[in-house]
């Protein structure tokens, strides 16, 4: 080994070690456990692909996948565009007090998930703010909001909270990258006769597509991992209406001590995340210049 190579390894080692110990090994460990029956004590028994078969036949698991898909869709197609538009408005100073709005939009991002969860719990709970407001609007004193009661709509308040909470992240990423664009270029477009909408569509957006793709990757991985907010607000309930893959996995592993089944769900989550990102990269390859 040349001394040059040695130096590379010396500098690489700490990061590599952390990566292997905290990411690669646990995944490998989970992968192995997913083929066994194990309750956390004693010797794991080999179970083959039984847990994967169970998962794919489990309606609750499929419902959690459905919720995860909704979360992904909302983050990619609502949070990211919303973040982009808000950033554009502030970047072009189309509203007054841009610094104030910048803080307001970014504020939810710096809050702890638990605090956000508790806050929205009281907003969406029965006798919470939302119910009171609807009561006043429709003037019906015995109105009961039943949004959590329906299997179809139970996830909606959570999606709303996620938009509120995570749009700020994409907003700030877009804003920072817009501010890096050449001001002369925007002014050249103005003098070319471009309207505000044309500047956004033809000049600013094409230059930020690579950023939007990175944001989408963040959004997809973040959505697949979403757990904390849901756990604080609903714990996956009522019944299983707001379960996501992560909460199903957590319940099986940490509440029912079925580590094998939990690990299988974890592996499915990881694989679907990787597949989604590969697909996204394939689809968007032509937009990313070297």
């Amino acid at each position: 080994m040349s001394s040059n190579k040695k130096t590379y390894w010396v500098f690489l080692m700490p990061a590599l070690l952390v990566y292997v110990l905290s990411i690669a090994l646990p995944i490998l460990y989970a992968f192995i456990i997913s083929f066994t029956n194990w309750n956390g004590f004693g010797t794991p028994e080999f179970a083959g692909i039984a847990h994967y078969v169970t998962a794919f036949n489990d309606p609750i698991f499929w419902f959690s996948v459905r919720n995860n898909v909704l979360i992904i869709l909302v983050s990619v197609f609502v949070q990211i565009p919303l973040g982009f538009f808000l950033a554009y408005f502030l970047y072009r100073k189309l509203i007054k007090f841009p610094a104030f709005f910048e803080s307001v939009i970014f504020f939810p991002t710096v809050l702890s998930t638990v605090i956000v969860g508790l806050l929205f719990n009281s907003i969406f709970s029965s006798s919470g703010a939302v119910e009171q407001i609807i009561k006043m609007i429709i003037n019906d004193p015995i109105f009961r909001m039943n949004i959590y009661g329906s299997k179809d709509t139970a996830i909606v308040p959570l999606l709303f909270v996620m938009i509120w909470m995570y749009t700020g992240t994409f907003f700030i990423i877009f804003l920072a990258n817009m501010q890096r664009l050449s001001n002369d270029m925007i002014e050249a477009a103005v003098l070319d006769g471009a309207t505000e909408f044309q500047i956004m569509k033809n000049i600013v957006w094409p230059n930020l597509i690579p950023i939007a793709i990175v944001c989408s990757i963040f959004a997809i991985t973040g959505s697949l991992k979403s757990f904390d907010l849901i756990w604080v607000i609903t714990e996956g309930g009522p019944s299983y209406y707001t379960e996501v893959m992560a909460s199903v996995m957590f319940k099986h592993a940490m509440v029912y001590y079925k580590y094998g089944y939990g690990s299988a769900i974890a592996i499915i989550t990881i694989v679907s995340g990787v597949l989604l990102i590969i697909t996204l990269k394939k689809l968007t390859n032509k937009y990313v210049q070297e």
Partner: protein
Amino acid sequence: MSTMVLKNIKKNYDGVEVLHDINVEINDGEFVVLIGESGCGKSTLLRMICGLEDISSGELLLDGVVSNEVSPQKRDMSMVFQSYALYPHMNVYDNIAYGLKIQKMPKDEMDEKVRAAAKLLNIDKYLDRLPKNLSGGQRQRVSMGRAIVREPNFFLFDEPLSNLDAKLRVVMRNEIKSLQKRLKTTTVYVTHDQIEAMTMADKVVLMDAGYAVQIGTPEELYDQPNSIFTASFLGAPNISLINGTIKLEDGIPSLYTKDKIKFPIRNISSLEDGQEVILGIRPRDFHSSSNVNDFLVQINVHEYTGAENVIYGQIGENKVNIAFSRKERFIKNEDLHVTYEVEKTHIFCAKTQKSIR
């Protein structure tokens, strides 16, 4: 017709006035250069003309119509930026065509115009390249192509040649000039380079600290500077400035310096005995002389530029910059005696710094 009149134009930033009462008339087809040191307000003025900056007070008349509030999109001007400001994600063709696309011009008409502009500027081979794959000069041409293809009423240039190397700068300078002469488009051009101003302009607006200190043809500014600022801004090497007092002898004024050297000057009737003035002599109005009674120059620095001998020296205690053709007598390590063309000298009031005529 495309004329422009700036009437008492002012600019305030947070209550601080940075441009003061600018008055300029620009005729149809004229090439006007705004020149001044950095920070003098020339770029701000250009941005106010095209509408990227508000006009704090005063009037901007385009073809006789007050246009202060007309949006930049509607002023029918195109601008070439120092940074070129090309759209990095569009190829050369789309960069040039963008303004026409916005006008919703029919495809084949647009295509014809884009190709004609590209041909004119010698970039027709690069139409499908991205800006990042072009050299500085090529980018500058694309930027000009984008400006001319729309056939606007006014061209604006904001230091377009500053990012180019010296040789290319001369080439592009000539191209811009001849292009403008051919298209006869009214042009406002900002630069800090006096050679660009002198060679290109029909009319020069010299700016200093937010004031338009002198407006005129390049010849007027060079030959009849109205102040020491104009006289020393234009011309390289700098004009020699010699402080002294006027003495009338038989009614004919001459200048005596502190060290009692007598400099003959132009006969200006308004000069009074004892008046404090500054004498300005252009370097090229000096000539070498074989007469030992003429001014003896102590040479501090001698530069031979090929065509000229340039001397930075002093006559007595008075610093002078001298340039004369290599055809004139100059022998190294020998005393240099010079005369100057008295009729071409400039006299400035020492107090007001203004020219006395």
